[in-house]
């Protein structure tokens, strides 16, 4: 191949997770010369898949909430994929919210999607509890409406309208889940049924932003959820195809080792293959801990305020997942639900403390993929994945020699917990097993210390404060971030739309360019 001279792009994007892909597609569609660099050999970051024997596993995604596939009005991801970028991705509906098994409390209940059905289920489980659930959900609905208004209005948001129409949103946003639940006087037995999605954020009710949790709960319950038929690798592949179709250049197996900064301005990157690439804008899907903890070159260009910003946050949980390919059908095994949320109880502060112990994590959120996609594995087989989370740091002392034994033992514990809670026998049916630990997530996505959800979103670091300070907190000129560390916080659609927004900010800042979508 011909050696090439120095390359220059309008934008270089570091990393092709959902955030990087969201930014890449938007930039390319608007005509920006864009290079997307990915250290792994596949695009997607967490949005990926892996094959073992007869099974193709979904590594991360449990469900895409607020996707717009269930409502009458086309919105969210459905609108994005179908109308904005024209990507054809096949999705399957997630059949129900969750089966909640609280072993100590002797609770085992199937919780459906749909506001009314949800309230009825709560009322049946806790007589008289329905009206509490109704109040709580109705407040959560107001949160979503306010967020939608703010997203639509952008900088034109009107304070008077906010005060008039979204007062409850304003008055509850500064608080934690606990503060809001206390003020509403929701009985504990009802909270037990409302709180299980806490595990998708991994921050306890005493510190978790109510606003963020409320939005998440409402969007799942009211709008349901979907999952791509061919694992989330299908989403990543479809987005890369669109990116390339619009003239973007994707290069896998290429790690960015340096972000070149001159006098406070990002001017290019240096890759693991020894190439220096210049550009007008750098967009990083690698999180701030990686960027400010080693990528900025020279190091003296790291602003101390950026480090303060970083050190003020608590890094969210690291993942631990047991992937099982089972040699019997879901029906033969007795697996009838999609999501299994299993824990002794739903005291989220106690569960959070348990995430700090090796043997600890009390809660698992497990998925039987066949319940949504019956043919996701060959006839007569089943895919089941058992997920829990650890506080970063718990695994720090693990040595290579202990690593395999340890992960095996913990996987065994999670299998037993599932078997005991559901009465389903898994041992003896395991045809393939793979275990992902905090190390595994760092290995494949480079994520800092295995963290899978970015920073813990306390009220002062929830969507609104993040969004309002994005501009101010851009400490290095022409260096933008996108993905789970961004204003929308973690999750597939959050990461994706944060990337799209970053791209739009960049485009609207370019002279003579206007956003076309």
């Amino acid at each position, binding site marked *: 191949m011909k050696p090439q001279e120095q390359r220059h792009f309008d934008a270089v994007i570091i990393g092709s997770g959902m955030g990087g892909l969201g930014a890449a597609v938007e930039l390319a569609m608007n005509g920006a010369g864009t290079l997307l660099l990915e250290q792994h*050999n596949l695009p997607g970051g967490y949005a990926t898949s892996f094959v073992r024997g007869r099974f193709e596993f979904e590594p991360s995604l449990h469900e895409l909430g607020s996707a717009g596939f269930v409502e009458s009005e086309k919105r969210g991801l459905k609108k994005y994929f179908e109308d904005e970028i024209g990507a054809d991705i096949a999705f399957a509906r997630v059949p129900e919210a969750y089966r909640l098994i609280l072993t100590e409390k002797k609770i085992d209940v199937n919780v459906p999607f749909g506001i009314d059905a949800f309230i009825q289920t709560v009322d049946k489980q806790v007589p008289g509890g329905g009206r509490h659930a109704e109040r709580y959900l109705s407040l959560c609905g107001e949160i979503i409406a306010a967020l939608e208004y703010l997203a639509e209005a952008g900088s034109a948001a009107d304070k008077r309208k906010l005060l008039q129409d979204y007062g409850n949103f304003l008055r509850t946003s500064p608080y934690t889940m606990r503060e809001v639940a206390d003020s509403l006087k929701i009985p504990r037995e009802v909270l037990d049924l409302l709180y299980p999605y806490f595990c998708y954020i991994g921050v306890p009710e005493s510190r978790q932003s109510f606003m963020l949790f409320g939005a998440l709960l409402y969007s799942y319950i009211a709008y349901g959820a979907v999952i791509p038929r061919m*694992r989330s690798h*299908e989403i990543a592949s*479809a987005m890369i195809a669109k990116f390339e179709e619009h003239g973007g250049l994707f290069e896998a*197996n290429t790690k960015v080792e340096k972000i070149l900064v001159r006098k406070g301005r990002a001017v290019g990157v240096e890759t693991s293959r020894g190439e220096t690439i210049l550009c007008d804008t750098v967009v990083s899907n690698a999180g701030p*801990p990686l960027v400010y903890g080693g990528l900025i070159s020279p190091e003296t260009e790291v602003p101390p305020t950026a480090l303060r910003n*970083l050190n*003020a946050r608590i890094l969210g949980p690291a993942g631990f997942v047991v992937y099982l390919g089972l040699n019997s059908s879901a029906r033969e095994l007795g697996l009838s639900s999609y999501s299994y949320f299993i824990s002794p109880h739903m005291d989220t502060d106690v569960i959070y403390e348990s995430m700090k112990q090796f043997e600890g994590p009390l809660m698992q959120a497990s998925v039987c993929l066949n319940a949504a996609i019956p043919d996701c594995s060959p006839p007569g087989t089943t895919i089941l994945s058992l997920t829990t989370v650890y506080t970063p740091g718990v695994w720090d002392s693990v040595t290579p020699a202990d690593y*395999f034994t340890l992960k095996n033992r913990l996987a065994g514990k999670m299998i037993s917990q599932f078997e005991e809670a559901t009465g389903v026998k898994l041992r003896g049916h395991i045809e393939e097993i793979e275990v992902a630990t905090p*190390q595994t997530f760092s290995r494949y996505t480079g994520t800092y210390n295995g963290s899978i959800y970015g920073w813990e979103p306390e009220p002062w670091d929830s969507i609104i404060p993040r969004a309002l300070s994005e501009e101010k907190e851009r400490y290095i000129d022409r260096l933008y971030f996108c993905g789970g560390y961004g204003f929308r916080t973690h999750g597939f659609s959050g990461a994706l739309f944060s990337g799209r927004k970053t791209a739009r900010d960049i485009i609207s800042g370019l002279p003579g360019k206007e956003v076309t979508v």
Partner: protein
Amino acid sequence: MKISVKGPARDLAAFFLLGARRRRHFRRATSAPPAAGAMNRLAEKLHPGRLELAVESVRFETPDTRTFRLTRHGGGELPYFRAGQYLSLKPDIAGNRITRPYSITSLPENALDPGFYEITIRKRDGGFFTGHVWETWEAGSRIESSGPLGWFGYEPLRDAKNLVFLAGGCGITPFKPMAADILGSFPDVTILLLYGITDRGSIIFKDDLSAIEEAYPARFRVVYVDSGPAASGCDDRRVFETGFIDRRIIARYVSSPRDATFYVCGPPAMHRLVESEVGSFGLAPGRIRREAAGDTIDVAAEPGYPAEKHGRQYRLTVHSAGGICTIPARAAESVLQSLERAGLAPPSECRSGECGYCRSKLLSGKIYGINNHHGRRMADAGFGYFHPCSSYPLSDLEISVPVDPFVRRT
């Protein structure tokens, strides 16, 4: 319904002060740079992208088989691994950068202390890489390698407690460390090794296997199955069988095959035979574990391969690293081999279609995929991705190939 948490005025003030609260948190924090992530470091230790190794010593196993002890160039510990894993060596032979997988034949603990791997290579007649090794490798030779890779090995949550290893020829390599490691770590596991050989005078690892048998007399047993010309039926039955490994021989040593997990590693012909033989026991699918087969030597023997294409020559138009070139390709060779022959240094690891590391995009043309592209992701079929290591051209092709992450840009 109007909701208030701490009084409407206080609530609103709290909302509009969120930004100030945020800045206060920042002001109180230190500006120390973040420490290197412990999980990122562990990932680097367990799964380094590349290793620079050096041959420390060479041992002669049989007339055509040698064991090479490899240490880290410059010294130090090597990545720990699971017995049964392999290294993907990345030699550069006169400008041809190729890869070759070799099972690690030493024990996992030796990787940490004193810090070596062993690999055991059988020379192939006219072998491109093995010929090169025989000619050039000696103490001090340097070789680039991947970290330990592969999924062949014992998994206590998945496998039975009675293990049956079926080895053929140099397919014995992963079983030597597996036997010692499993027996040492899992006191409730028993292992039977049926080892297909063709010459009793030159059996790879005969002494090592005897030593393991002596250490675990009740739990490990080796039976050699001799299909060579000199084989006779009258030998000591406790050690030798005659013929090929088949259901009759297996049944003689395994009382209840359905309660065992079988592991197979050997030449393709042995895989085929053994699978139909073991298959007759009606085992659950996960109870037969197969090591990756590596390059397919004779694609014409594969089911569904259009025989008339076999002798053809095609042209590959290759997009890689931002450039384009056209290279020749033989129908009888995998697309990966053609790329390697042309000196394009494509990425690969398992060379068997299963790991996906060579994943490339087919822009136009037709290919034949071994085992119907068994390791390919579902979505990849729709978006036109394929695995060059297990795909053969059936026409001229235009493809896009990723770079190898460790080959510097020129």
